[in-house]
């Protein structure tokens, strides 16, 4: 697909907008795509990125530079071509009307849950954390789309001082755990400590997990995660898992 736009929004993060062909399937929140340059074999494999924002003509990805592949993607300019495969994987399931959806986003994990706020306007409680204020992205864009927005920073430079899980622990003290459903995406560390709490309070929750991928289609078994019922493929049975499986 052709690159329409590529904008740095911080030193480290950029938004890549790609053209969508007319009949292209549209993603659901939580689904992802594999992206790779259109030529050469280095890098070889596609890299998975969540569908961030889209309309009929284009789709955007919010990408953080972490290695070679993402660094290369950051150099693409309008007119360049990128091969995309998707939408792939399972999306976040809709919440029951009786429950308040609570979104927990850690760092670049925001890319995966952001689109929930597009589908269900102003319904979500959105808890978003990062290392410091400068890494909290697009907060003014998110604010009008959600019911409540809580920001957390490790260094206290904005919002609550502490991480998303610490904030959520506080938050739970004032909330009935059966009245909410949690959608979460963040770094592995966050997911781990979050899971403990979610399980303890028996909260209905859906977590988006990460694993290195090759095919994205369930064929290579490369993206396996150990679950209660055996090895599951993040690209097929995930990336969004019901916490009951984990």
């Amino acid at each position, binding site marked *: 697909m052709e690159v329409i736009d590529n904008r740095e929004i911080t030193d480290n993060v950029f938004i890549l907008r790609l053209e969508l062909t007319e009949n292209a399937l549209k993603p659901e929140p939580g689904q992802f795509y594999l992206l790779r340059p259109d030529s050469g*074999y280095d890098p070889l494999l*596609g890299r998975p990125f969540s569908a961030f924002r889209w309309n009929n003509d284009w789709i955007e990805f919010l990408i953080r530079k972490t290695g070679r592949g993402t660094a290369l993607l950051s150099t693409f300019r309008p007119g360049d071509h990128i091969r995309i495969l998707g939408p792939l994987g399972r999306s976040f399931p809709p919440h029951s009307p009786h429950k308040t959806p609570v979104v927990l986003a850690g760092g670049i994990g925001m890319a995966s849950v952001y689109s929930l706020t597009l589908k269900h306007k102003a319904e979500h409680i959105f808890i978003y954390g990062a290392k410091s204020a400068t890494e909290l992205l697009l907060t003014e864009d998110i604010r009008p789309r959600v019911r409540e927005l809580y920001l957390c920073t490790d260094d206290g430079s904005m919002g609550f001082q502490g991480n998303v899980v610490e904030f959520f622990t506080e938050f739970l003290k004032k909330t009935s755990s059966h009245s909410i459903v949690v959608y979460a995406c963040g770094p592995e560390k966050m997911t781990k400590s979050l899971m403990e709490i979610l399980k303890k309070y028996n909260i209905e929750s859906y977590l988006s997990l990460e694993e290195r991928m*090759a095919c994205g289609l*369930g*064929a*290579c*078994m*490369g993206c*396996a995660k150990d679950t209660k019922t055996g090895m599951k493929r993040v690209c097929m049975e995930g990336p969004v898992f019901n916490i009951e499986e984990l």
Partner: protein
Amino acid sequence: MNLEVKIGKMTMKNPVTTASGTFGYGSEYAEFVDLNLLGAVTVKGISLEPREGNPPPRIYETPCGMLNSIGLQNVGLKNFLDEKLPYLKGFDTRIIVNILGNTIDEYCELSSALDGKVDAIELNVSCPNVKKGGVLFSNNNDMLRTLIKEVRTTVKTSTVIVKLSPASADIVMQARICEEVGIDAVSMINTIPAMAIDIHSRRPRLSNIIGGLSGPAIRPIGVRMVWETHRAINIPIIAMGGIMTAEDAMEYILAGATAVAIGTANFVKPTVTLDIIEGMKKYMLIHGIDDINSLIGGLIC
């Protein structure tokens, strides 16, 4: 224009199949590839019982290649026969089933359960022999000979292929053993044992430490091994290792392959198998070749 090739008793409508482990059980790619158009579908290695495989991380990208240590996760023989095979039977293509065992008995049990039900059985011999302290079958010529002799005797109907490992001491010698024992064809090359380290955490990139290297990086090694083997044996070779394009496939055919298998390339472009078949036809057209068989081993040197 004839693209048909023969591997043992199996006739393929064209020389292109998939490399075991990279195409699931066929259905995973059916959205992208009309399976009817492939010469054959080779499925993920099957064991008697289902296997969970290695803990993650299982894959890592390296320059023009990738490491995998899936650990042969698969659905097991029963599920394969009940669910995967009937699905594949619905297509007009050949079915090659890659098998793996811990003992010679396991290989024989698998072979006899599949014999006649599938077009070909491909033995992955890069597996540890648990009765011999875990030495890989492919690392010991005597063990290899015993294994493939037993399987050869067991299988009556299906074509028998032995998949050779580039890590064995002498791959050409192993191909000769296959021919002597009456194996129908060899396939090569399996992945090359390799590893990578995260220098910051000082840990291996794969939980299994060592994985198999595949992809374009290994192609020149595969082509050399196929060429050397082709000069030593008369049974057909199914070649694989870094084939990304029709040009790469033709390179292997000129080196001596009768058919080619596409592996890692499926991950890079899901429709690649069909592109390669079309590209081979184009090559034949341009060069005025009527029969692909006339190109096998056609390297001029």
